[in-house]
């Protein structure tokens, strides 16, 4: 027996084992979750994971296996993990990625290998338009959406001369594009800051000198904390509007008073009406000892969408499973939820305000900023 024959035999055995495995999770599913669990952006990934696992646990199903890995917010590591999950672990569905640059590195190859990808967060414009794919679903939003809602809110509030800033990277450009798409007034200034910048004294001085009547900013995570604290200390008291990413439950406590009263836009809030949402907020808080953020709600919805589709069709029947996903017949914590033609949500986006409840800083719903809003790229998607 030659070496070649031996390897062939091993390969065949592996194939058979793989086949048996696929049959083994016919009714259930093997889900690969790659998300950010360490480093500066870990809070977001942890919230997505906790929301997702809460839904899986509540379903009571034992035939769903979730493999969770940490991408450390690095695209190369995300790609390695995705290869391992798809080729060695033979997962059916992938999910979990937070950051758009990581999503761009992982999602196209995942869908090209015949797997489903459900994004619980990142929604880069490239994947919503020309790069859309029948096996790619975004359960959160297209990147521009919350910024568009901020622009619409600015019109409603009568702002006519906004100073806008965002980090100099793809999602930052999507943000300013999104705001400008809806906003009808003049721009007092437009700045791209460095990604990861922590000192905004220079930008705040420019805002002060610009004669603006309002400020729009997209600075997710720690960048937003720094900006808001420094903005509050600077004595510039122009009204601020921004997307929920700088005002989510995970960072509000670190910002403190500086965020009070700021209007921000989100597709979800903890006081949205509906039993499903109330139950989600209550069980999440009971299990993890903290209030859920919008990221947690997105993880929760993603898992419930998968569960609803699994109830209708097995993953192995790809066409039926895809139809079941597209139908999105699950109770979203956001209330109404449906997919557009490019598999991105069409949904209401709300304005909310930062308030203090006892010792805890949180968001209160103000009203709808954009109703039944779809993204601007759907037309470019030829699926």
């Amino acid at each position: 027996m030659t070496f070649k024959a031996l390897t062939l035999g091993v390969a065949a055995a592996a194939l058979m084992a793989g086949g048996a495995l696929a049959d083994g999770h016919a009714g259930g599913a093997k889900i690969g979750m790659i998300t950010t669990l360490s480093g500066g952006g870990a809070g977001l990934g942890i919230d997505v994971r906790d929301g997702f696992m809460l839904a899986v646990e509540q379903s009571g199903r034992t035939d769903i296996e979730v493999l969770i890995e940490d991408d450390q917010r690095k695209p190369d590591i995300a790609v390695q993990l995705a290869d391992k999950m798809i080729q060695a672990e033979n997962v059916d569905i992938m999910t979990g990625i937070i950051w758009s640059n990581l999503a761009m590195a992982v999602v196209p190859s995942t869908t090209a290998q015949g797997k489903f990808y459900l994004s619980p967060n990142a929604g880069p414009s490239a994947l919503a338009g020309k790069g859309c794919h029948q096996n790619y679903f975004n359960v959160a939003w297209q990147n521009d959406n919350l910024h568009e809602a901020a622009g619409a809110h600015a019109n409603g509030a009568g702002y006519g001369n906004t100073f806008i800033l965002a980090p100099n990277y793809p999602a930052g450009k999507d943000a300013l594009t999104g705001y400008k798409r809806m906003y009808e007034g003049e721009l007092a200034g437009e700045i791209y800051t460095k990604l990861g910048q922590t000192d905004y004294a220079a930008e705040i001085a420019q805002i002060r000198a610009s004669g603006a009547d309002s400020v729009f900013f997209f600075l997710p995570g720690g960048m937003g904390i720094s900006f808001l604290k420094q903005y509050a200390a600077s004595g510039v008291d122009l009204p601020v509007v921004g997307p929920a990413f700088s005002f989510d439950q995970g960072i509000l406590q670190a910002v403190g008073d500086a965020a009070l009263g700021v209007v921000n836009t989100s597709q979800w809030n903890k006081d949205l009406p509906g039993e499903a949402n109330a139950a989600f907020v209550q069980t999440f808080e009971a299990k993890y000892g903290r209030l859920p953020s919008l990221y947690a709600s997105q993880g929760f919805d993603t898992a419930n969408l998968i569960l609803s589709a699994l109830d209708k069709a097995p993953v192995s029947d790809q066409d039926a499973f895809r139809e079941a996903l597209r139908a999105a017949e699950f109770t979203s914590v956001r209330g109404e939820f449906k997919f557009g033609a490019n598999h991105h949500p069409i949904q209401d986006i709300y304005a909310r305000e930062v308030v203090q409840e006892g010792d805890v800083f949180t968001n209160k719903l103000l009203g709808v900023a954009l109703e039944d809003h779809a993204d601007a790229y759907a037309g470019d998607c030829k699926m």
Partner: protein
Amino acid sequence: MSAILIAEQVLNGLQFGVMLFLMAAGLTLIFGVMGLINLAHGSLYMVGAFAAAAVAGATGSFVLGLGAALAAAAAAGVLIEMLVIRRLYRAAHLDQVLATFALILIFSEGTRWVFGSFPLYLDIPAALSGPVSLPGGILYPAYRLALIAAGLAVAAGLWWLTARTRVGIQIRAGADDREMIAALGVDIRRLYTLVFALGAALAGLAGALVGAIQSVQVGMGEPVLILAFVVIVIGGIGSIKGAFIGALLVGLTDTLGGIFLPELFKLFMAPDTATQAGSALASMAIYILMSAVLIWRPTGLYGARPA
């Protein structure tokens, strides 16, 4: 662009510079005296910020928080010097880089283990909140003025320590010739631990002071560490004076570059492209500065000249 805006930006640059100096001073001392590349210096900055946030949160006193930051960072410094760094003085630089990089990972995940993944809250003291009016009608945050004053005070204190005290003479001598100072009967191990603790405490102080206007989170030290390395390369390795001048240069270049380069580009470009091209060039400005200084003076502004 008004004179007020320019003056405010110069103050911002100064403030950024003196905070960088606190980081760079420790780094350059440790490198100069012990010949050690300490990548974990940023972790000590983080330790200071977390200690300040925890203690200020529990007691409500910012001053106690600062004390805790100094103590915790110095203690962490002594601990890692005695457990890890001491074994590395004779090792190659690559070994030092690997070991201190491992320390970064240990500190980051250890901090996450103790404090969780979400940023902590640390606010500026009430007495220094809000802006003050400076002559000429400049409205400037009081806390940032306090930072400039604190940074300059520490710089003066360090100058006094190195130039006027016995320990300072030993530190300078250690930077010049390690074997000779050991041969003269100075307890070099104790001196090393002392220098390391001093550098760590300065990093911790910077972390606590800056943490109050930024976010106290895991990984906050690494971006500052990179800038601090740029500072000591510009200033000349081992020189406190060089670190001071280098820190101010980097602070001013970074701040003013970020403002004026996009404006400059707008003179001959469309505003949209000018903003992007200007921002891109501004983020490179300090590295261009570093290259220029190194071409002019290969050992940095105040580095030891090769004989």
